[in-house]
């Protein structure tokens, strides 16, 4: 079974630029999550999708972050404009409805 795929693996941008991350969850997993993990901390949930609907986006900084999951499969997370404090690893996870979440390798973002 293929795992959660994410791209790119690394991204370096300058502040005020825009960036987008892509996630392909495990086939058949209805629930998809985006997390932000700042160095030295645990992952923090940004947004949760159930199929193509948003379940929880209470911690998503909506003035600069946006996410979509148009067909209930792949998802993209966008930041525009980026700030220095957005430097982090962005993790995507999916689940079929059971408790265990399966994580992708993450995208490491550096904002200069």
């Amino acid at each position, binding site marked *: 079974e293929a795992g959660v795929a994410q791209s790119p693996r690394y991204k370096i941008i300058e502040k005020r630029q825009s960036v987008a991350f892509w996630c392909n969850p495990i086939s058949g997993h209805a629930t998809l999550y985006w997390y932000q993990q700042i160095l030295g901390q*645990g*992952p923090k*949930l940004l947004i949760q999708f159930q199929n193509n609907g948003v379940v929880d986006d209470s911690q998503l900084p909506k003035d600069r972050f946006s996410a979509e999951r148009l067909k209930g499969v792949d998802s993209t997370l966008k930041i525009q404009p980026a700030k220095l404090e957005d430097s982090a690893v962005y993790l995507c996870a999916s689940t079929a409805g059971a408790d265990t*979440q399966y*994580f992708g390798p993450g995208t*490491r973002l550096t904002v200069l």
Partner: protein
Amino acid sequence: SQQGEEDPQALSIQEGENATMNCSYKTSINNLQWYRQNSGRGLVHLILIRSNEREKHSGRLRVTLDTSKKSSSLLITASRAADTASYFCATDAHSTLTFGKGTMLLVSP
């Protein structure tokens, strides 16, 4: 906000020794999970313990949960160099996970 808090922040042991990590949390939970993260990688699920369970085993892993104290522990027995990683507890209260800051475990050969 991060609900789980792991203790210690870092742990260094020799191969063959046991490693114990603790996690404390603040609110009621449905279950508590432990994840491992190798440097530069995603998180891997290790074990889940439900709020009505007190102890669970999986291979060399043993997890305990004390809901009255709002705490959990993860014991790794007979550690190996390959166990070197960061370990996170995550509480599940409303079908979303809240992670702690993690314990960095270093197992030296």
